[in-house]
């Protein structure tokens, strides 16, 4: 009796909502998968149900990997993404820690000022920014993106981390410092590990946004081999008024699934690893 009650409550409160989310969030993704596997000859065949595959082909993947520079685009994207994420995350941890933990004059102002930077949309900013990029001689180099992406990553990552650092009780760090640890040691050994979920989610945030970015990648890099996955695929696979849907969707798959698998380990780490142990301590 109790057992079945519990089961039904889990069904309604957990599994059904999860099923809803799975369908809503993954349906478009399923569609991308289907299109990436569908032979061209069936794409416009409206007599058969477009939602399943009567035949499938890996041709689009083969095309993407051998007839385009996709591997090179993936490398570029990875270099830029790792660089920008590392830079943003390091600066944001420090910034977030300063804003969230220290009392100093101008603290609120500094927090607000960072925020201001966000209020100008990239669709406008890229024109003046392209002048800066050119002036520094970064045009068409990895640095063009590694240094400009943080402009939209640092504000949010800092704020997220600031919020996160504030949820950690001050006493923990003060205890450590009374025990003789320096500020740095207290931060490095006590606070940072406790803030790991926040750090990882800021990292995931930065990584994803860098991975996806299109406009800066198109304008500041985007020549020759220096294309990222989004820029390369869109430039190479849309020919005038004809979309090569199969390879485009194959690129969407190859450009996201590996990242999702990597996230699987991170998210799991911060969720299961910490709930039980660290925060309690």
């Amino acid at each position, binding site marked *: 009796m109790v057992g079945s009650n519990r089961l039904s409550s889990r069904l309604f409160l957990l599994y059904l909502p999860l099923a809803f989310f799975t369908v809503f969030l993954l349906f478009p993704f399923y569609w991308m998968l289907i299109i990436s596997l569908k032979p061209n000859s069936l794409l416009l065949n409206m007599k058969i149900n477009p939602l399943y595959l009567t035949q499938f082909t890996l041709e689009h993947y083969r095309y993407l990997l051998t007839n385009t520079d996709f591997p090179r685009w993936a490398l570029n994207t990875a270099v830029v993404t790792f660089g920008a994420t590392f830079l943003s995350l390091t600066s944001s941890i420090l*910034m977030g820690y300063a804003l969230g933990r220290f009392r100093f004059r101008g603290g609120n102002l500094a927090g*607000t000022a960072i925020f201001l930077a*966000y209020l100008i949309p990239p669709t406008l900013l890229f024109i003046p920014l392209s002048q800066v990029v050119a002036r520094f001689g970064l045009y068409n180099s990895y640095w063009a993106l590694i240094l400009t992406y943080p402009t939209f990553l640092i504000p949010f990552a800092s704020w997220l981390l600031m919020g996160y650092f504030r*949820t950690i009780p001050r006493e923990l760090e003060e205890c450590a410092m009374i025990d003789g640890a320096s*500020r740095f040691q207290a931060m490095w050994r006590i606070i940072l590990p406790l803030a790991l979920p926040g750090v990882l989610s800021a990292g995931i945030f930065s990584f994803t946004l860098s991975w996806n970015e299109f406009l800066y990648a198109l304008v500041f890099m985007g020549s020759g081999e220096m294309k990222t996955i989004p820029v390369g695929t869109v430039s190479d696979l849309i020919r005038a008024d004809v979309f090569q849907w199969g390879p485009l969707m194959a690129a969407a798959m190859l450009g996201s699934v590996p990242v999702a698998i990597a996230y699987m380990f991170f998210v799991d780490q911060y969720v299961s690893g910490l709930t039980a142990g660290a925060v309690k301590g």
Partner: protein
Amino acid sequence: MTTAPAGTVTQAVPLRLRERVRHWLDSEPVLAYLFMSPGWLILLLFMSYPFFLGIWISLTDRTVGLPSGEFVGFRNYAELLRDRTFHLTVMNTFIYGFVTVPFKLVLGLLLALLLNQAFPMRNVLRAALLLPWIVPTALSSLAWLMLYDAVLSPFSWLLKNWGLIESNIAFLGTRTNAIISLCIANIWRGTPFFAVAILAGLQAVPQELHEAAAIEGANRVQRFLAVTLPVIKGILVITTLFSIIWTFADFQLVYVLTKGGPANSTHIFGTYAWQIGIGGAGKLGIGAAISLYMFPVLAVLSAILLRYVRSQEA
């Protein structure tokens, strides 16, 4: 770029100086500014100049083919006030922002709460449900373009197959349809972002408090309100705030799906600024002014939310 230089310096010098440096470094304001410097350096170099230049451009008649322009004061702003398409753009942006953000917040919160529970295969699902946010928007927008396509849409196909409609639905063909379609695609893309930020916040919720509350007979909703919410409130507000900004400044999704059409009925700030400024008309000054009209709106909104965050902390 990191704290490393400070650390290495202290190790290399004799003890007394080291003590003094250490003492100095333990002073909060000094450390605070030191910690903020790498971030500020990047923002100042790559943000402040473009920021002010952007404002300057909005006060000139600069075009895309001309790296300078005459100062025209607030003419561009005044002109927009009389532009009916711009009025519609403002309205659309508000609809787009204020419809999608609450959905993203509520759905993201629910999703985070769900993903925070134990169930089989949960790590796989956690990663999989992030996918909408990971797929490059340039490509996922194309997938939505197909889903809403007048020819290829599987929705139309199914409804037709079930005999519910006669001809394909014009998902992007009327203002109402198009705005709903755009909102759904935006919610789809943004929900996982809320979920991941909130999920991180949930990790700071003390489990023992939850357990204690449960023993005292609090139900789920009460426990959520009394135990969970206070801890994650700051993160909720910050995430919402940033999401509002991004949604207001969105571009790519609308650009790929409608480019503001049909008949300018789905423009948001980003796409209209693009149409006037970059994509064709080339009037950078007006394009910049369109973008900057967002500034006061977002600034007021941010001020309210930020005040709230700070009042909670005090």
